């Protein structure tokens, strides 16, 4: 089941998050909804990201693919170059560079879509709270039996109200 708890203060939210984690919940069980980004210190609600690795991987992949393709194409249709080499990194370096960058752009974008969960299948049962300009909603996923404990933790931390959603 899910608990939806509304907060008005970031400090209260931090207290709640630390207490919930102490009670055995993982960051995967927790989600905060807000109209603007909220930044926490390290260790409160970490969301490890592999986006920069993905960007580098995408860059290397498309850059290499483009360069190999140019190499293949130049040899596939071999023109008489009058002294110039058939394939030269110098003469096609721009293409390697631009395609490397394009690879990074695409990788970042798709990784963003994936990591943010926008293109992943969502749990249809998980409720999405309505958020207003001034509020932050914390969604907690927990077993039905322990719900009371968590509601108590949330209240102690200073939430405005808590709803239970089956």
């Amino acid at each position, binding site marked *: 089941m899910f608990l939806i708890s509304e907060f*008005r*203060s*970031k*400090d209260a939210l931090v207290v709640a998050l630390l207490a919930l984690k102490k009670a055995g919940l993982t960051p995967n069980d927790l*989600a*905060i*909804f*807000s*109209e*603007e*980004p*909220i930044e926490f210190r390290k260790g409160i*609600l970490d*969301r490890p*990201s592999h*986006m*920069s690795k993905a*960007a580098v991987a995408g860059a290397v992949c498309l850059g290499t693919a483009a360069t190999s*393709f*140019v190499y293949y*194409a*130049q040899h*596939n*249709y071999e*023109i008489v170059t009058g002294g*110039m080499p058939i394939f*030269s990194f110098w*003469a*096609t370096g*721009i*293409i390697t*560079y*631009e*395609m490397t*960058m*394009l690879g*990074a*752009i*695409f990788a*970042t*974008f798709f*990784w*963003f*879509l994936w*990591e*943010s*969960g*926008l*293109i992943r299948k*969502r749990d249809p049962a998980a409720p*999405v709270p309505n*958020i207003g*300009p*001034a*509020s*932050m909603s914390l*969604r907690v996923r927990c077993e039905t039996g322990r719900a009371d404990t968590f509601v108590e933790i949330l209240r102690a931390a200073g939430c405005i109200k808590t709803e239970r959603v089956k």
Partner: protein
Amino acid sequence: MAEHPELLPYGIIREDLFRPLSRAGRKWWFTVAVCFLLVLAGLAAWGVQLRDGLGVTGLNRPVFWGLYIVDFVFWIGISHAGTLISAILRLTDAAWRKPVTRAAEAITLFALMIGGLFPIIHLGRAWFFYWLIPYPNARLMWPNFRSPLVWDLTAIVTYVTGSAIYLYLPLIPDMAQLGAHNKPWRRKLYRALSLGWTGSDREWHALEMAMKLNAVIILAVAISVHTVVAWDFSMSIAPTWHSSIFGPYFVVGAIFSGIGALIIVMATLRHTLHLENYLIKRHFDNMSKLMLTMSLLWFYFTMSEHITIWYGNEPKEMAVFGQRTRGDYAFWFWTMVVVNFVIPVILLGIKKLRSIKTAVIASVGVLIGMWLERYLIVIPTLVTPRLASATSFYSPSWVELMITVATFAAMIMLYLLFARLFPIIAVWEYKPHSPEEED
């Protein structure tokens, strides 16, 4: 209050920034209609050119590149407004950037769309432009990857893609907020564009990460794009084109004209959308200082470019140099120096004179000056080829002028449409405050 927009309550900010989306005044419709007619006229002129051939332009032998290439370089230059400025400001975490970035990024995307058309308009057989793209074809061959024009193609494709994504990413949260819009078609549009954004911390985290990475990438791409545009010229052996300074010279010129365009757009938005509380004097002051820096840099590059030609005294280069500084193009050359250097330095360098109005005046001058700069790079070289017997002249035809005018109209039209469809200031980014500071 106007000096501290950060303290405006969130509700009012949202109201202020979303309001322009719902109401379109008579002036807006009028301007869009006029621009639309001009764009149609430009398309008709292009139609004439496609039907009759490139002979309808003022081009001749040896002036094979004319107004279209000038416009191409100009618009690609304008596109540097956005992404580059917004990326630099984002990376340095300059807080004052927040109301400026989206306005700038939109300029980039539209200027690129327009600029990217010119190489196609300019083709002798425009309907075969896709022959530059590598795909298995009936000609059983690939494009020549060592041609600077193919480099150009890859650079611009990368830049357009990157800028579109860079503009789109921070739009997503705003789209989610606008998803409750009262007009059904807008609701559908905004909801589709928001990709089901819920505002969870996972999404915010990924978004900020993606913006940071994209800012770095787009900076690298933007610099390379204008370098490659410069290399279209400097890879050739034409006198004064074959210059190693052209890469950085073009990049500086591009940022210079980009800032000019951004200041004009910002002033217009402030005035027409009543954003006096958001685009405050400090923004114009900062932009003016940036422009002043670029003006000095531009002068430095122009100087070092010309003084080396003059001192080297190589006859073929001196012929072009003479055309520029005391020949047929001297008037335009010295006009360029005045509007690109003298006026900005006086208006923006003297603190007493620096204001929104003078910044706009200087910016208009810079746009004219930078357009002239490209004209003076392309044309004088071509009218004075190496063999004096081939010396020629160039004056643009009505078709070229019409298409040029149409692209300016297209820019205004696209921008006006954009400002009605999307909030021109990133609402969520404008106020990333914690709620307890609210009220």
